[in-house]
């Protein structure tokens, strides 16, 4: 699952903190959720707007909920709008989905006045599985192994949101990644290309505004 992998890469596996600005992570996860619907063949993008091509419920409950929302709100079509809307609670939504799948555990931290629940891998198995997400991408890219469509979209979203250095640690790997990017983007369907581009733009805007 695209958003699951993105979540595990975007959060520190020891502290559970978001590696990016929380707004950027939210946008990346929102893009992951929309990307899943595209990969499932339910959603398409044209000139910056989303179109539903099939109303058949996808197997995953979160995707199903999102598709229902998209169907119920046909007046909102723009990718920008949906990225902004979904980014608000995407981290919780995807975190809970990971919890249901047994990939993470809820960890509640008490701060001075509030308690905050984050979802993070706790057991050794969970942490191995989480770390594998980024290692898998770095391996595939480094050994020039062919990647499946989901991993290619994931790589593009990682670069677009600024997570590159958490997946590709060495400068050499990062250079390789940048060299491979045009090829990866060319191999993506048009809908996903647009999704990635809008994600990058949305992250830029969110950071430029500088609000928490």
């Amino acid at each position, binding site marked *: 699952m695209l958003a699951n992998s993105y979540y595990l890469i975007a959060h520190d596996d020891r502290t559970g903190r978001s590696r990016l600005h929380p707004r950027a992570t939210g946008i990346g996860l929102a893009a992951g959720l929309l990307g899943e619907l595209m990969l499932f063949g339910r959603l398409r993008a044209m000139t910056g707007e989303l179109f539903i091509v099939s109303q058949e419920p996808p197997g995953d409950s979160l995707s199903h909920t999102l598709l229902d*929302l998209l169907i119920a709100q046909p007046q909102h079509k723009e990718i920008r709008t949906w990225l*902004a809307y979904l980014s608000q609670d995407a981290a919780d939504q995807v975190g809970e989905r990971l919890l249901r799948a047994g990939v993470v555990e809820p960890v509640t931290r008490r701060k001075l006045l509030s308690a905050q629940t984050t979802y993070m891998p706790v057991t050794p198995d969970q942490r191995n599985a989480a770390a594998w997400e980024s290692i898998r991408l770095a391996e595939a890219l480094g050994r020039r192994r062919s990647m499946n469509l989901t991993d290619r979209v994931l790589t593009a979203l990682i670069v677009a949101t600024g997570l590159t250095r958490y997946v590709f640690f060495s400068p050499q790997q990062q250079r390789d990644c940048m060299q491979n990017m045009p090829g990866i983007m060319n191999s993506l369907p048009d809908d996903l290309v647009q999704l990635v581009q809008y994600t990058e733009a949305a992250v830029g805007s969110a950071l430029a505004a500088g609000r928490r």
Partner: protein
Amino acid sequence: MARTALTGPDIVTRGLAGNRLGVPSVVFFGVAGAAPLTVILGSIPTIYAVVGNTAVPLVYFVAALILSLFTVGFVAMSRHIVNSGAFYSYISHGLGRVIGVAAAFIALPAYAAMQIGLFGLFGVVASGIMETAAGVKVSWFPCALVAWLLVAVLGTLWVDLSGKVLAVLLTVEILIVLIYDAVMLAHPFHGHVDLAPLAPAQLLTPEVAAMLVLAISGFVGFEATVVLSEEAKDPKKTIGRATHWAVLLPGLLCGVSAWAMAVSAGSANIVQSSKDNTTDLVFQLAGPYVPTALVDIGYVLLLTSVFAALLAFHTAVTRYQFALGRERVLPRLWGVAHPRTGAPLAGSITQSVLALGVLVVYYLTKTDPLVHLFAWLTVAGGLGVLILMWATSLAVVGFFVRRRRKENVWRARIAPLLAFLLLTAVLGATIIGLGELLQVDAGSPFNWLFTTVYAVCATFGVGYALIMRGARPDVYAGIGRGTEGFVVPESVFGRPAHLHKVTADVAHHA
């Protein structure tokens, strides 16, 4: 699934609006840059002293009028282009990308100069407070240095004073200004309230146009409101209303305060007492009639106000460099934000280093921080911003000349044209009268130096844009579209950006 016809905003709209800014937050954001207390306590006495004309109150009202006229078209245009940029993106939409890049190269030094100039005011005010409050004699330089350090650190952390802090500070500032004004008006010179400073006939004196640039530089920052259009509850209404408020509020406040000062000191004496007391003028005039605590609070608030303005301008410069970096007009490094905090580091550090350099030079050459650092750099920056506003007003005219885009005749035609004509007059008079504003002799190079620097910057920008058009056409195509419009920076993502609504609009005007 049956969907009932909804009245009012749907779940998505509401969900988005919950996290977004309403009119007051946007106004505070805009007015914070203008920092009314800084203008009232710092700039107004300076204008009285430098120009020696009593039309100051009137000039503020006129400046507010001109700018709100300008705002009509500016906000109307902001509804049709979506980006987080500033004046230069409007200019590149309305007048083409070549002029847009030229404008960007004027904007960078202009905003930078205004910010650095404020360090001078901060240093002087802080050293004054240290002397009266603690009895310690500190020169302006260490004080300015402390402010510099704070701004540099907060800038790299991308800490913008939060809306609530700003709102509280501004409300208290405005309140205290109103109290001072009331006190000054209640104790007029020789016992009668003098209406002479408000006589419209004074507008016919030759200095007025030159004073307008000083007044307009007191409003700088109001244009920052459109930066938040992405963050506003309703980009169409919120930003329009907030921008008008951000112009009218400081305009009225400054005008009334300037009048109150003239009434309290007497129209005949105001110029001389401004020269004698500079930033202490208001405290000298109102001080005898208010509790000492209120004067002390006034001093502290002046300090926080200048600091808020320093931070706001620092952020503005950084944001400008970030936007230009993302569009690859500046090197790529300037468009990179810190992944975790989102701080545009390169821009922030550049501005801090520049400011430190200027401060050190002023310190080593023992140049006066109030006149030559604060007043001169603010005037120089104000001139640059005025050039930008002038070009933007022309851009608005140009933007709507081709298509009116469902805006009415007033917004799309009359107001922009009037604003352009008025700003042309002000700009012309400013360029001619700049020497007088800086108080230099007729033979001094400073009569034309700043204007020439801007002209050189603009020419450089034009040349740079033309080179870009030839060498990097894909990058050139993205100029002025802001972070949102220019979807793919550099060719990391292979394919060219898709034409969507925003870009289609731009392409239409290319």
